[in-house]
């Protein structure tokens, strides 16, 4: 039996980027806010102690900072004809856990989606006709435009101290930036990072074959910076321990470096860690949330009443929270009705690894998002008229590390051990690098999330079930983009280059991307979306669901820039509209 606690104005589930941003905005409005976080408290000096933070075995191989499958996991299947089985060891993706969430162990790539990404169905219909969109895809327009989100992208970039070069300032194309990006109001807060050799060579080669490379925007700081909250951050030291690691020296933006020092000082904010929310509680009508019930680390249950509940967990955990709480109607792939679980999407990667004899790349000098990108083949930046697919990919060279245990690029015919393996390891460690295509993942009618009928977590709750395979469209897209990468590789004259293409079926085991999206998508129609343009539940209007769970489909970029822009957008709507007149912000 849960013990009832004194009521708060706002209860937030999860204290990662979105939870921290919303908590900071809403406490500025004098609201009483509590964030309930499943994982432990983490701060830079004690949790990412520079003495052991670069422990590759603990953090990279054994995934110390992540959600532990024994605590909760998902089941997986490729299609509805299969029986889903539990993921007992993360592979393809790794959900975050603890204060800071995935914002602790991300690489720092901070993208804005293309303007056309936000109105994908309308854009494609206008350019190519409605019949051009493959039947398997359930592409939707976003209910917000790029122009509407631009001020919120700007707020996040200045909060995080993003290093980059604008490609389009107030409609004027800028040399050195991404010529395809939407118009931005001002430059990035910091100049681009210093380039290491591999991305420099990649960019020269891409330019030589007629593409338009530019410096990738990075939340690894190119210089010391004080953000608008007055929090100081440092310059990245290129240690090469970003992805799956916490940053030891305050130079990779995270909730810890960018929000928490201000938020934690506030007397109207409280963070409760190692407290796992079991469900959002609804009143008898099912139309209003009364708060949340959570379990603490001793197993005691607590009921936290609140006027507003913000679901700010990892993407598919947001969907899980809606399903387990009975918020919204679960999606049924047979009837294509229902909204929660709809349009789960992912990312479609391919890559080329190059091996040289005459070039030394020093891969250990690296940062999570330091590199160069080509956007000529992303989204609808290129004419699809004579092609048999929609979508595209960003093509990037962003070497993130040369770590001793897991970084060892070897040509495919190398033995796994022995004298020749040693020779090849010595020969190639310094002389290789890769570049990748981060392809869009467009939603289908079949791919979705729901509750598993068989497997349960340690508390007896059904696990989330993931049903996903690559759409044929996305495989055709990835193949085309990969072909477009080959000339870049050839122009560098490597000893050898190895093309890694993406094929069906999707496999949940090999590491691919933690860019899981959808399942609680935002939209204009309550029949086909779980939340409205402010991320407010259509069904329970005092619940907002914030994260990449809201993406109707996934463009060819890392999601976090857009995720945090959406968090600021939601905060703005709650403050300007909802607090004045609590209720649905978009009429149904």
């Amino acid at each position, binding site marked *: 039996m849960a013990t009832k606690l004194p009521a708060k104005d706002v209860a937030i589930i999860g204290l990662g980027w979105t939870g921290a941003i919303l908590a900071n905005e809403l406490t500025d409005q004098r609201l009483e806010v509590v964030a309930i976080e499943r994982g432990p408290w983490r701060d830079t000096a004690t949790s990412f102690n520079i003495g052991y933070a670069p422990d590759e075995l603990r953090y990279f191989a054994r995934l110390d900072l992540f959600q532990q499958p024994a605590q909760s996991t998902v089941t997986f299947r490729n299609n509805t004809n299969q029986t889903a089985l539990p993921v007992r060891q993360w592979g393809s993706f790794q959900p975050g856990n603890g204060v800071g969430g995935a914002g602790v162990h991300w690489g720092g790539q901070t993208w804005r989606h293309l303007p056309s990404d936000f109105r994908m169905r309308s854009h494609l219909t206008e350019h190519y006709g409605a019949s051009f969109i493959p039947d398997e895809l359930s592409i939707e327009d976003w209910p917000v435009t790029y122009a509407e989100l631009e001020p919120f992208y700007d707020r996040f970039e200045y909060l995080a101290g993003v290093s980059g070069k604008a490609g389009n300032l107030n409609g004027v194309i800028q040399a050195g930036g991404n010529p395809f990006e939407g118009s931005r109001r001002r430059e990035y807060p910091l100049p681009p990072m210093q380039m290491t050799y591999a991305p420099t060579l990649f960019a020269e080669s891409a330019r030589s074959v007629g593409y338009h490379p530019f410096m990738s925007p990075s939340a690894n700081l190119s210089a*010391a910076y004080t953000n608008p909250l007055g929090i100081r951050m440092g310059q990245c030291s290129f240690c090469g321990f970003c992805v799956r690691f916490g940053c030891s020296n305050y130079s990779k933006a995270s909730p810890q470096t960018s929000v928490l020092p201000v938020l934690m000082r506030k007397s109207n904010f409280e963070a409760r860690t190692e407290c796992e929310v079991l469900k959002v509680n609804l009143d008898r009508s099912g139309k209003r949330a009364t708060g949340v019930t959570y379990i603490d680390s001793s197993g005691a249950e607590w009921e936290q009443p609140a006027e507003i509940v913000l679901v700010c967990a990892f993407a598919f955990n947001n969907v899980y929270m809606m399903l387990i709480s009975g918020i919204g109607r679960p999606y049924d792939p047979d009837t294509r009705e229902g909204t929660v679980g709809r349009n789960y999407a992912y990312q479609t990667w391919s890559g080329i690894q190059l091996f040289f004899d005459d070039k030394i790349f020093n891969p250990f000098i690296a940062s999570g998002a330091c590199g160069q990108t080509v956007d000529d083949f992303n989204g609808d930046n290129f004419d699809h008229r004579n092609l048999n697919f929609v979508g595209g990919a960003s093509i990037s060279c962003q070497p993130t590390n040369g770590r001793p245990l897991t970084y060892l690029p070897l040509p495919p015919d190398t033995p796994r051990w022995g004298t020749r393996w040693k020779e090849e390891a010595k020969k190639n460690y310094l002389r290789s690098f890769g570049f990748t295509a981060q392809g869009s993942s467009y939603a289908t009618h079949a791919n979705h999330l729901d509750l598993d009928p068989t497997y349960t977590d340690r508390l007896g709750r059904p696990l989330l079930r993931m049903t996903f395979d690559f759409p044929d469209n996305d495989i055709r897209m990835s193949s085309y983009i990969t072909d477009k990468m080959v000339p870049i590789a050839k122009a560098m004259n490597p000893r050898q280059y190895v093309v890694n293409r993406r094929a069906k079926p999707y496999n949940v085991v090999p590491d691919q991307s933690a860019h899981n999206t959808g399942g609680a998508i935002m939209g204009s129609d309550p029949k086909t979306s779980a939340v409205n343009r402010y991320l407010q539940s259509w069904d329970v209007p005092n619940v907002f669901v914030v994260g990449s769970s809201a993406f109707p489909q996934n463009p060819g970029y890392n999601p976090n820039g857009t995720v945090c822009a959406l968090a600021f957008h939601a905060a703005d709507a709650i403050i300007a509209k909802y607090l004045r007149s609590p209720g649905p912000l978009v009429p149904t």
Partner: protein
Amino acid sequence: MRILTSTLWVATIAAVSTDAPMTAGRAIYKDNCAGCHTDSGTGAAQLVPRLARHPAVQSDDPTTLIRILLFGSQAAETSRAPTSPAMPSFA
């Protein structure tokens, strides 16, 4: 103790020493300290203290340095300077 003070002294003097404790101190400094305090001991303004010519480093009495290494250190927080950056314990 000699290595400890040597470790921090390399931040204050550019001279390359062949003295064994100084050589060891230089390596320890590089591995454990330079990531934040930088190779030359300049630190980072308003975030990481400058060690070069820092009184605690130059003092004949190493007590302060030993305390900081064992227990870590955290800057005070104020409403104008909320960052409160910290150094972990190296114990």
